[in-house]
């Protein structure tokens, strides 16, 4: 059993932070790795990135967007409640190096994933420029934390409610035009990562993206998380989750993410109807 030590609702209420007691994982986790959580006996195994760790307290932090049945179930857990299962740390850690100037681009809950990686690059002595984007102001997560680990922070919202009005790619283009960039890291919704990768390909700047296909075991035994990278099939849970953005087949990833859409919608709807009737 894995106790939630702290819970916080972020943004417009659709994003939740949990600190979870998992001492072995807290000791081991490195930026870029994730855990798989299962709340109850009948629950689904859900991957979430480790956004932060506190090895002294033995806790890890996850930040997730409430999107379907499992995340709705998670969101019903209060501090003091438990996840039945938490497995990790899974995936390859980010290859943090001194590259020079690094641009960290984050969108939506991807910002939570980006934060420990950005911190890692900053600590490794890089010049870090962060560009964060979201639909609207409330969804711009971790602004303060990201500011602390960036030399420069740029914020964008689709609706102009905060920072620049526009997409992260607009700001990124400006940066790429104005100086030499050695590495771009882009984490967020699939279309965002796709367009960032397309842009940086024009400038021939190495780009890392973090992929989030549907997973079950997270240990390389089911092949459900397979993604096409440079024409080769890779398992995101063990070969990734980070890959060279210029090689990823994002369209196939998007479509594979929709594999269970009908069932997910049905169970989410029925579940919420039952919950609301109570």
């Amino acid at each position: 059993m894995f106790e939630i030590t702290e819970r916080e609702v972020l943004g417009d209420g659709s994003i939740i932070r949990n600190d979870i007691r998992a001492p072995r994982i807290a000791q081991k986790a490195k930026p870029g790795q994730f855990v798989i959580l299962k709340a109850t006996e009948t629950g689904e195994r859900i991957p979430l990135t480790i956004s932060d760790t506190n090895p002294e307290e033995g806790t890890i932090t996850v930040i997730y967007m409430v999107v379907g049945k499992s995340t709705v179930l998670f969101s019903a857990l209060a501090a003091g409640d438990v996840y039945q299962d938490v497995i990790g740390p899974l995936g390859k850690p980010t290859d943090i190096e001194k590259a020079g100037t690094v641009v960290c681009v984050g969108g939506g809950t991807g910002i939570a994933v980006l934060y420990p990686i950005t911190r890692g690059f900053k600590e490794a002595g890089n010049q870090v420029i962060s560009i964060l984007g979201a639909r609207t102001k409330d969804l711009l997560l971790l602004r303060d934390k990201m500011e602390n680990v960036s030399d420069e922070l740029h914020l964008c919202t689709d609706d102009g409610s905060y920072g620049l009005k526009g997409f992260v790619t607009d700001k990124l283009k400006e940066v790429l035009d104005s100086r030499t960039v050695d590495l771009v890291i882009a984490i967020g919704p699939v279309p965002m990562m796709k367009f960032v990768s397309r842009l940086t390909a024009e400038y021939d700047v190495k780009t890392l993206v973090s992929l989030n296909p549907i997973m079950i075991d997270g240990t390389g035994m089911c092949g459900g998380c397979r993604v096409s990278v440079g024409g080769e099939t890779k398992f995101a849970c063990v070969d990734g989750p980070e890959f060279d953005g210029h090689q990823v087949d994002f369209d196939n990833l998007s479509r594979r993410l929709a594999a269970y859409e009908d069932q997910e919608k049905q169970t989410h709807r029925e579940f919420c109807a039952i919950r609301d009737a109570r």
Partner: protein
Amino acid sequence: MAEKQAKKEKIPRQPMPEQNPDERRRNFDEVPLGYDENTAVTEAGRCLDCKKPTCVSGCPVEIDIPAFVKAIAAGDYSGAIGKIREKNSLPAVCGRVCPQEIQCEGECVLGKKGDSLAIGHLERFAADWERMHGTGKLPKKAPATGRKVAVVGSGPSGLTVAGDLLLKGHDVTMMEAFHKPGGVLVYGIPEFRLPKDIVAAEIEFLEKLGLQIELNTVVGRTVSLDELFEQGYDAVFIGVGAGLPSFLNIEGENLIGIYSANEYLTRANLMKGYRFPEYDTPMALGKNVVVIGAGNVAMDSARTAMRLGADRVRIVYRRSREEMPARAEEIHHAEEEGIEFHLLTSPVRFIGDENDRLTGMEVLQMELGEPDESGRRRPVPVEDSDYVMECDMVIIAVGASANPLLTRTDPEIWLDRRGYILIDPGTGKTTKKGVWAGGDIVTGQATVILAMGAGRIASDSIHNYLSWGW
């Protein structure tokens, strides 16, 4: 099968009562129902109690078959199970899933002229009788030695090592990556062939003996082998199975609707996807399903798809019937349930629609050519024989190989060319001091009983080591 009565035998082989195919093809209840006492005693009476029982040499763990069968014939069921347990700690499992026709029953003298003794069915009977009527009394454990052993992986090899070493007085902790123990017995083999209650009962028994289980522990990630030694473990057994699914590496393999058997069966069995939405994990529901491969894994996938409501399920296999590796009983059961076999047929590519959803599979007809190195006649394509099979789901069951997750984290563990762990066959010792290995991670995907046999060899050696040193 059972009807064919050899002249000299008075009693025919007793058939196993089974759920009728029309019903069972749509439910997940166990297919064979088990012998009742009368039938078991009658069947046991057929044994000739041979002086040189050839059956025993066909059993990888050399159960004293005539002795346990004689006990059943005499109505001494508790004596029977006691005899079996001397050699086999998972009899309810083995009685159900061993490929008996090529092991114990394949060597039974009765089989020379008629039908061999139904050793598997009798083993199952004794084990089920124990679960229902047994005293539940625990066997006596040797005095505590204070030595600590870590068993990595909770499949049949790990369970055997754990059981043996607990009885010898050692402290045993089992580490399992999944949230449930049992290995392939829980995530791979379906409920209708091996009810999960039976596996749970076996594991509970070991827990009563003192087994500690740490679930959700991925050795190599959550904790390394060296850290286990730092934590005070004196020996480690690795029984992590061969869990890496093979794909065909042909065009279109990442379309939606194409699954590895591992994924499909894990969703169904471990996550109980067949009970969606009561359980949260969704299952794809194919209407027109093709399963590629012809081993046990393929049969299990095909029969699961049928139970989940498919209109049509086809098995596609590039060789001929004789080469099909599945147990005879499973092939027979699959056929009875309406699964079609398309043999000498080889997939060429997958075809999808504009949303990347699978719509069909192009295949090529094969014919048997000259024998290859393995002595099997090699399938060769027939020219211009390709055609498209319409389908909305494909399950790929063409084998599995070594998962590098753990083995690659420790350079002291030497691997063979294909990534399996190298061991000393007589002891199960790896190249790293204090570490043993056995089961599918050494041999490649094999059988439950062979994994258990490997566990037995390793546990003997570990016990020697803990008593006398490396």
